[in-house]
């Protein structure tokens, strides 16, 4: 059991072993440019951490408010390097059967039925093989022969006890299956974990990662994002939208507008053929940016919208 198995059935016989693909990013500027080509506008901090993660072979733990592009960072890295994205969506109650692997009981039971009369020790060797294994995202990423990008999304949703599931994968890139042995990655996956910071992650998990706090973009970058995502948006309007949204984010709200909401807002304004943002227009479309009535009321007060009408 102590030997390392290659899961041959899971994608070609150890084809890529020892032949890792050359560094996808030559330097920080290259990683920024690569991400930019996929439509993900980074700042130099993000580009730098992506570059370091690639070089050091460490997972990135991206944390920040909802809708600032944590998940799309992983997608952008996958697109920029031409690697496949394997995604593990976390939720309360996630267990190893959903994260790592599961035995296919139905098939095992059928096998036992058809093999009636066989001795148990023969049978045991038969039913605990990879034919009966259902791979889940973590094992899939580890056993893949070509390098992949592994996205572990919203890791703060699992209970702190279940985080332990991830540790073996994150620091030695291997998965141990008691009946089968240890599966080691032939090529290290590029791992991105995201967290909305709804709870503190365990020290053990954080220690294994590079930490990247992604906050709302500044006006300049948000403007660029808007221009690249919304076709036909005039530059002046984009600047104005970014400024208004920035000013709204300074108000303490239950749910500050995210980048995707400011994109929605830009689309709304474009659809309404608005060319100049003033108090009345903002007042009418505020519900696109804000999801709570109490927030809307607060922002109205902050921007003096009540008095505009």
């Amino acid at each position, binding site marked *: 059991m102590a030997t390392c198995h290659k899961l041959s059935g899971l994608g070609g016989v150890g084809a890529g072993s020892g032949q890792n693909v050359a560094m996808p990013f030559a330097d*920080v500027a290259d990683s920024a440019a690569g991400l930019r080509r996929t439509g993900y506008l980074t700042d*130099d*901090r993000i580009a*730098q*951490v992506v*570059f*370091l993660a690639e*070089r*050091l072979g*460490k997972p990135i733990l991206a*944390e*920040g408010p909802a809708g600032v592009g944590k998940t799309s960072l992983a997608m952008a890295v996958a697109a920029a390097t031409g690697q496949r994205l394997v995604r593990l969506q976390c939720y*309360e*109650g996630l*267990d*190893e059967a959903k994260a790592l692997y*599961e*035995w296919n*009981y*139905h098939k*095992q*039971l*059928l096998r036992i*039925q058809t093999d009636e009369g066989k001795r148990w020790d023969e049978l045991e060797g038969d039913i605990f093989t990879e034919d009966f294994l259902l791979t889940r995202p973590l094992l899939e990423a580890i056993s893949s022969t070509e390098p992949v990008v592994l996205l572990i999304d919203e890791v703060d949703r699992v*209970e*702190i*006890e*279940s985080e*332990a599931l991830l540790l073996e994968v994150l620091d030695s890139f291997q998965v141990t299956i*008691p009946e089968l042995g240890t599966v080691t990655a032939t090529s290290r996956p590029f791992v991105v974990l995201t967290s909305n*910071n*709804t*709870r*503190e992650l365990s*020290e053990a998990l*954080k*220690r294994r*990662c*590079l*930490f*990247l*706090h992604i906050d709302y973009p500044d*006006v300049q970058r948000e403007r660029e994002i808007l221009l690249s995502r919304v076709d036909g948006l005039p530059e002046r309007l984009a600047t*104005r939208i970014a*400024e208004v949204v920035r*000013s709204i984010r300074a108000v303490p709200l*239950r749910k500050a507008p995210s980048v995707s909401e400011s994109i929605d807002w830009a689309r709304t304004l474009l659809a309404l053929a608005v060319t100049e943002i*003033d*108090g009345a227009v*903002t007042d009418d479309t505020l519900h696109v940016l804000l999801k*709570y*009535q*109490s927030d809307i009321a*607060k922002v109205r007060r*902050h*921007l*003096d*919208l009540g*008095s*505009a009408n």
Partner: protein
Amino acid sequence: MLSSLADFSAELRATGVPVSMVEVLDAAAALDEVDLGDRHAVRTALAATMVKTARHRRAFDTAFDVFFGLAVAPPASPETTALAVPPVPAPAGGAGSGGDAADLVEAMVAAMRSGSRDMLLALVRIAVDRYAGSLPGRPVGGRYYLYRVMNRLDPNRLRQRLRASDDGEQVEDGAFAARLADAAAAERVEEIRAAIHDEIMRRMVADRGGEAVARTLRTPLVEDVDLMHATAEELAEIGARIAPLARRLASRLSARRNQGRRGRLDTRRTIRRSLAHGGALLDPRWKRRRITKPELVIVCDVSGSMATFARFTMQLTYAIAHQFSNVRSFAFVDGIDEVTRFFGPGIDFDEAMVRMATDAQLIRHDGHSDYGAALGAFAERFAEAVTPRSTVIVTGDARNNYRQSGVEVLAAIAARAREVHWLNPESSRYWDTGDSIMSKFSPVCNGVHEVRTLRQLERFVATIALDRTPRLRPTPLT
């Protein structure tokens, strides 16, 4: 570089940022990959490897400023930039006697408008020369210098001038555009303030050496701030930290409820199902887990002596109420009232506090804490709130103004509830001094906890329900 990395991590640890050995090694490996001449890159590399929560970022930045790079003057050549700024006369007289700073303000506005960082930095140096009035060798944190310089420049004037500078197209739509311009100008003033701060820091480090400066600058991390004496700024930061903690408390108390939908194998139903396949156990059935719905009853002392702490506990209550529905909260001074309705989902916290103060009947007589009266009234009016599934959390300093304790009422509540925990914001050294009657209450509680800091609250949340922590489900068929 490596030895200064070791010093740097020692400084971080001294501030309270936990930096493990592995992380220092990662930092060293990361430094191998970056251009050491690029201060920004070095900062990013160290931050990514050594600081694992956004909360510690400020402490990191302060330490970084002191340890790396700032001792070297920024790469602008002062002669050329000074020439490029005609309206600035040579600093007249001694430090602090620079007169009106209008010329500097104008030059800074011009620098901001043209986007010339170098010129701004040169101007900042002149401003610090003129107005900081710094005395070498003094063990100060630099805040006062910053205050003096900013005071002379006058943030309001700066803001107004900066606003006027992008006056190009606005004016048409009054209030709205004005708001936006204000926000933009305020941000630029912050930028100038940050530049001045960096310059002062650089001089202090040059004067006294990094470690000495770092020692003066060390401030407690937000989790170690005493809740009773927190500043408004610290309270805001603490408030932001509470939601994650409340979620953790909620998941602690209801851990069992979330352990997946599947329980153990249900033999009876599995065999029953197998009849359909001629006895083959094709379709395993699982027992459903029993869903426990924990109930939380929070009883808060909100009297004057508890004001800061009460705000904190109400914040916690508010956050918990957003996490799970079975929460009832009560506030008391010498009367008690249910305040659950003020802190429901969808209600703004500050609004809730105002409404609690105006609408709830918390004061019956004189507005001094009276645990006996409050607990008595609780047992009389809200007894049905406590059931065998309830966890009761009482928060208060147990300073009863020498009145009836009401401990027998609490004992009766404890007998009916699953657990009673008492959180006391006072240092345990002061319990039972003066009018504090903590030891009267402690025998009837399952736990009495000193909670003066966020860290202690975290510890409380971690220990509560620890014995009920569920194990992972073992893989079936193995």
